[in-house]
């Protein structure tokens, strides 16, 4: 029986890019001013009036083959429960190699602690008995799903089984666990 593998699914069909996820994450996780753990990415292609648009809410991909974990010299970046990529701020020297190593730009230096920070999949909520991330809980279009990719009955598994999806920079070798439904 495999242990859990936590991942996230974002439905780009319903995501309107409102940033409720961004604000909720900031208040839930007491993220300081000037930095953010998640964000909205919008892409428009075509020439007026033949246009198409893609909107998605993004954050750390909690890669299975995380270059940030590989490069960390102190072990501050490590794999936590369910393969969540975590940062132990006590061990972080702020060398920023992980920031340079992340192809997604998902990490940043927390100006209050001078250590590196990023999305934690709200694991503290999971540990306290709430199996949803703050962004998932607030999303008014219900576009965010968090769950166990190793559980075939979970929402994330069902959605990935039934709809076309993609990950970001699939050729970077990172094996991200954040999926985007087309």
């Amino acid at each position, binding site marked *: 029986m495999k242990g859990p593998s936590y991942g996230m699914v974002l439905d780009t069909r319903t995501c309107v890019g409102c940033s409720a996820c961004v*604000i909720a994450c900031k208040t839930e996780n007491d993220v300081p001013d000037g930095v953010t753990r998640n964000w909205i990415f919008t892409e428009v292609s075509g020439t007026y009036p033949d*246009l198409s648009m893609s909107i998605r809410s993004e954050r750390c991909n909690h890669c299975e083959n995380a270059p940030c974990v590989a490069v960390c010299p102190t072990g501050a970046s490590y794999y936590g429960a369910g393969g969540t990529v975590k940062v132990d701020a006590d061990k972080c020297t702020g060398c920023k190699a992980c920031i340079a190593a992340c192809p997604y730009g998902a990490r940043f230096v927390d100006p209050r602690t001078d250590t590196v920070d990023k999305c934690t999949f709200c694991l503290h909520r999971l540990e306290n008995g709430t199996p949803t991330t703050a962004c998932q809980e*607030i999303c008014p279009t219900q576009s965010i799903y968090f769950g166990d990719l190793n559980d075939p009955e979970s929402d994330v598994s069902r959605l990935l089984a039934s709809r076309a999806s993609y990950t970001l920079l699939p050729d970077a*070798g990172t094996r991200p666990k954040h999926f985007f439904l087309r």
Partner: protein
Amino acid sequence: MKRRDFIRFGSAGLTAAAVLGAARSRQLQAYAHPVPDPRTDGDRVVPSFCELCFWKCGILAHVKDGRVTKIQGNPNDPLSGGRLCPRGAGGTGLLYDPDRLQRPMIRRGARGSQRFEEVSWDAALNRVAEGMQAITARHGAEALALYSHGYGGSWFEHLFKAYGSPNITHPSYAQCRGPRDAGFELTFGEGAGSPEITDMAHARCLVLIGSHLGENMHNTQVQDFASSIRAGGDLIVVDPRFSTAAGKARHWLPIKPGADLALLLAWMHVLITEGLYDRDYIAQYAYGFEQLKAHVEPLTPEWAHPRTGIDPAVIRQTAHLMAGARPATLVHPGRHVTWYGNDTQRSRAIAILNGLLGSWGRRGGLYSSSQLEVMPYPKPAYPTVTAAIRDRADPTLYPLGHELAQGIRDASIRTEGKEPGIRGWMVYGSNLPTTLPDQRATYRAIQDLELLVTVDVLPMEIVGWSDVVLPEATYLERWDDLNTPAYREPFVSLRQAAVDPLFESKPGSWIAKELGKRLGLASYFPWNDAKEYVETRVRATGLDWERLRKDGTLRGSPQPLYYEEGVAPSFATESGKIELYSAQLAGLGFDPMPTFHDGEVEDPPAGYYRLLTGRAPTHTFGRTTNNRLLSEVFAENAVWVNRAVAAKWRLQDGERIYLKNQDGVRSTYSAPVKVTERIHPDAVYLVHGYGHTAKGLRFAQARGIDDAELITRYKVDPIMGGTGMNVNFVTFLRASDVDAEAAKEVVT
């Protein structure tokens, strides 16, 4: 280490290294610290409802060590269902805004100089009462007016009704959704409601006319919008701009600004001539079908094509999609519809279209709302007010309109030899200079006032011009009246304070009562405070008070929503039927059926572009642009310029420009250009709410362009007085050019 190893590490990727790393790291996990808890969960969680916009979503405010740490949605609330838009989630940014009004102030310098003296509540309230009584003594209570926007305004409306003034106005009427409700009332006998009575979640085809849901973040509307997408319904979006909603649409119709009515009429033509409308429904419930049929007979898609810029084939195709999904086809009534001054007729066309599709009262269309009745708090009856509201120069104008905010404003201006009919304003939560069109007129009116009192939370522009400033506590610090909206199900939600008011701010309920006492109206405020007021109401209705306090919401019994569920069709129109033809309008001298008049909407002059405005999802007009939490995502607005137009002007993406309108008014500040394919070449687009000039808004001041400055011209809807504001045209001034010469003076 040999060279081969280098190459393997370098070119074969990180697999081997990562496996090693992963194994090693899992070993280290045993020594890793436990999950760090940001500890934002509250010691107390207080259910209430939000006031970042006017939807009133149920929230849960987490309070820890006397501070609100975060705000979540209240799962018990039917409007939010436990989910919030970004503004609601960012309410702490308002509560802890460092620029909040802290103490009552009385003006000491010239009006507009923003020189105030902080005074006690007693002194401030006495000043207000004296001022109001002085005006009343000389000119009567009808020389006083109240502008109100926001739920806490109810206490002041009560005060004014008790005082006997007829001039109570909400800018949300003539500056926003007034024409829509007039159009729907003329057709169905009922407005579109707030929350809108749209059954989007069940719509098989959803048509948005200029509505930009997803950027307009009315929570329940966006939730329903997402549900309809999830359910696989077809989406048709008609908008000169490729909005977020357009990005999800099966059909985006990039309509020429101002031509929506032509499209709606052409759709009616297709539905009727091809027999695609709901015959039984129309036969049973509608009046005036034959007249409508004759009216739209010549209004073919080919006729509409040059007027709208939409291909006739597309007009037919979309009409067929709409017909195929009926009666679960919803042509959304929209919300802010004050565009071109013919907005009642355009809204009526939308209503008629819904009628033809049979969606009114049907599943997937417009449902029948229900409302929980809660007993009122016993109080004396209001005095009869014989004076008419002074919101129009000529009483025969705008026969179906009421409480026109711009009219009250105009009535306050002294013209040659003629004294103004209104001398004093009380303004609750409404920043009039950026709300009413023609900002210059608003400032002229303010200069002519004898008394200007504002009740607000932040030092908005209107506050800087006031005589007396009364700082209200935010929604998180106060109790307000119960919310019992007409909605899919009857319910009541409670606003209760999560924390005590900061500084010396006071709840509006207290301010109104204290004013009432000083105006001799104590008997109209028999309650001790708002808490006692709502508790009395709840208990008198036989509802569970303790449960309401704990859950934030109590629901009534579910009521049928559609004719299919047993709702009895009834239309409060003159004919008692759906009026496709309106004898009432004909009798008043207006088109009985919406008619497209060529040339009614002018084209932009050469070198100018129509100024279109809208919303950003993180903001509620100018109310939230000082909220630093919300503004991190969207701090400054940009001018959307069509790529081809930008190329013609040699404007670069991100280059800063000023805008100048057709009346020569130039924006006070500059904004960056957003070169994009997403906007019609005849128009430019700005998000409303930026370009604050008030110095007290230390974050928002000088950020972006204020569209309200540029809306100097407006076209008034002759039926109900709504102010069409999409009738201004702007041209571009390079910031470098403007800064090089002496700055031109903004005409005030």
